[in-house]
């Protein structure tokens, strides 16, 4: 019954945040919540016996892996937020009154995400996903600026309207299971067991509608339009959480549903659909990156591109590609969160977004050498430099994609090259820009709490990229089997 601890922890933290008066203690609580949930997750990973203790939680390798990523990102974001939010409050961007709402929303978002990952019931999963949308919209609009409210409204409208379609998909799935076995069920595991005999028409409709909603959640192209603006306008701690954790929830849903579809007769059509969407996503994301003038939208588009790449891995559907999809998710979340944190430091330094909308960045290496260095390291990681994990997953997924057709890896590699050129084309001018002497902004010294998570995340991604942690391969293989992709690696 360890999983219950998550909920108890959440309630306790939320309660305490109501009572505490001082800002310092509220932020400490904000940090405590994800760190303890990370501890619980690691403990759970260590003791497989505890897993099926209660039927109320679905704990298996896949959900624990996603929970591990989520809690790492939330912990890093919370530590980062301690310094970042102070900066916002001192510079007057964030009113003292809405601080409490921020931390409350932050902890609630973590609680709801944990619930989403561990619920066995699809409908409950859908509600939690919907709640994450609402809560992250609240966090995006926390700065109470017209632009931030506009961005979060877009986020709400696009995501929740698409999520309604996925609820219709769930209803169709329920109906299909009911036709086959008389009593419909909403449990992931039951549906997976019944998947073989389900009626093809009903299952195909169910998947398509389900896919629409969760494509919006994870930023797949036709539904991605909210992502660049939401991530650009949100405070950096929030956009790191959005990119690192919430997108993974969308992908988690798609992985589970594709796992169910794996045994049905419809899987060929499903994988073609996923491949088409993946290629379009990567295409649009890479090409729009070439045109980006500002830092955070650029990083947001690279998240869309990586989500497209993950969708490609899922679409291929072989156990090897799933193994590398999970690996890619881990690597991408760490690097992307690190990038958003260093972007946050630059935002605090240069007071972005400025009135004119253009980024005015200058004397980069004089004012913020640390942030500039980590930004470049992050860009190198995104470009797939070998010591970082994205290179390995690029090799793994493209290798398994050659089974379908040789043109896919060719096109994907060209798109990755475009993305790399776009990143550097953005970085070079700001690297050399100079403010006329005397006019430059006052140097902003980022507190240690903002620098620490960046270093931790970069080192973590380096460790993932270079060395294979002892149990990691077995754990990931088991996760691949859990989500129904079975077969030999």
């Amino acid at each position, binding site marked *: 019954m360890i999983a219950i601890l998550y909920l108890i922890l959440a309630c306790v933290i939320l309660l305490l945040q109501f009572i505490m008066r001082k800002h310092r203690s509220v932020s400490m609580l904000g940090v405590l919540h994800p760190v303890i949930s990370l501890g619980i997750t690691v403990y759970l990973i260590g003791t497989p016996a505890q897993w099926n203790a209660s039927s109320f939680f679905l704990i298996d390798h896949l959900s624990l892996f996603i929970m591990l990523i989520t809690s790492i990102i939330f912990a890093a974001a919370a530590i980062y937020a301690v310094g970042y939010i102070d900066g916002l409050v001192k*510079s*007057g*961007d964030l*009113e*003292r*009154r*809405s601080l409490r709402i921020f931390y409350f929303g932050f902890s609630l978002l973590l609680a709801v995400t944990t619930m989403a990952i561990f619920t066995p019931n699809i*409908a409950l999963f*859908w*509600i939690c996903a*919907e*709640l994450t949308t*609402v809560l992250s*919209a*609240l966090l995006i*609009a926390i*700065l*109470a*600026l*017209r632009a931030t*409210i*506009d961005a*979060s*409204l877009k986020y*709400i*409208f696009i995501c*929740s*309207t698409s999520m*309604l*379609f996925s*609820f*219709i998909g769930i*209803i*169709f799935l*329920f*109906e299909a299971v*009911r036709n086959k076995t008389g*009593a*419909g069920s*909403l449990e992931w595991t039951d549906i997976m067991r019944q998947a073989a005999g389900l*009626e093809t*028409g*009903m299952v*195909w*409709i169910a998947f398509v509608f389900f896919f629409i909603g969760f494509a919006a959640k994870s930023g797949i192209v036709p539904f991605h339009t909210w992502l660049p603006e939401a991530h650009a306008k949100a405070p950096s701690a929030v956009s790191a959480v959005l990119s690192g954790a919430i997108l993974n929830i969308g992908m988690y849903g798609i992985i589970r549903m594709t796992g169910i579809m794996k045994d049905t007769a419809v899987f060929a059509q499903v994988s073609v659909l996923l491949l088409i969407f993946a290629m379009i996503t990567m295409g649009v994301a890479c090409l729009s990156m070439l045109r980006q003038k500002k830092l955070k939208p650029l990083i947001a588009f690279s998240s869309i591109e990586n989500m497209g790449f993950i969708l490609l891995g899922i679409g291929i559907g072989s156990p090897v590609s799933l193994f590398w999809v999970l690996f890619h998710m881990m690597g991408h979340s760490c690097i992307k969160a690190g990038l958003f944190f260093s972007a946050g430091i630059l935002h605090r330094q240069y*007071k972005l*977004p400025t009135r004119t909308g253009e980024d005015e960045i200058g004397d980069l290496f004089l004012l913020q050498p640390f942030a500039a260095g980590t930004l470049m390291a992050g860009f190198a990681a995104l470009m797939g430099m070998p010591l970082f994990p994205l290179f390995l997953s690029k090799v793994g997924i493209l290798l398994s994609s050659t089974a379908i057709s040789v043109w896919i890896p060719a096109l994907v590699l060209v798109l990755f090259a475009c993305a790399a050129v776009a990143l550097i084309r953005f970085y070079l001018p700001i690297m050399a820009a100079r403010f006329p002497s005397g006019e430059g902004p006052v140097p902003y010294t980022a507190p240690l709490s903002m620098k620490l998570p960046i270093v931790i995340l970069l080192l973590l991604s380096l460790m993932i990229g270079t060395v294979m942690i002892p149990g990691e391969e077995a754990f990931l293989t088991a996760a691949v089997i859990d989500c129904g992709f079975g077969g030999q690696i």
Partner: protein
Amino acid sequence: MILTEMAPAWIRICLILTLVSGGFLLSSRNLRNLVRTYQVQSFLLVLIALGLTALEQNMVLLLVAALTLISKVCGIPYCIGFIQKRMSLKQDLTFSYLRPPGALMLSILIILLVYICFARILESLYEANSLFFLGSVIGVSLVLMGLIAVCTRKMAISKVLGYLSMENGVLAFGLFVTELPFFIEFVVIIDLIILVLLTSIMTVGIDSSIEEYKDRMQEFHLWSEEGGIS
């Protein structure tokens, strides 16, 4: 008794009426009767729920009908009406992409398209001419019409109303699956409450110009005065 064999015909009429209310939602310009059409639509859903309870003698549907009645027919419209009064905005005249007549034409086309496609996909259900099939067609097309409303209306409040009619579409579809409706109802209610709360606060900001925004916010004593612009 008479109720049971009359019920399927009764349900089909109500379903068609919900479609009509969706159409009204698209075309009405005045914010007040936008809310009123939403109330009518929710009420029709309550009637369908009652019809279904008569057909399948399942008490859960009664509970669903009651819940819908409380929340959708009275609760949320009252809340939106309250906000509208404060915003003193009556007309929503500006449209993007599609003017109301165009939107109506498109929605008819959509209903036809959904009908044909679902007929091809779910042949087995189509032959059985089951209520579930009709419910699914009506539900999906109502959701799509709601989406058109969200897409064509400029004002955020009317977008929220479009979204609410989409919720109704999902609920209409959900009613026809016996074991599921309570769960759906519960789901939809929670979601609606939170969503409406959040969006209405924000829409107050969006629709009114920036100066009033500050004092309007004060009025709701939610945020203090000096929101500095970075």
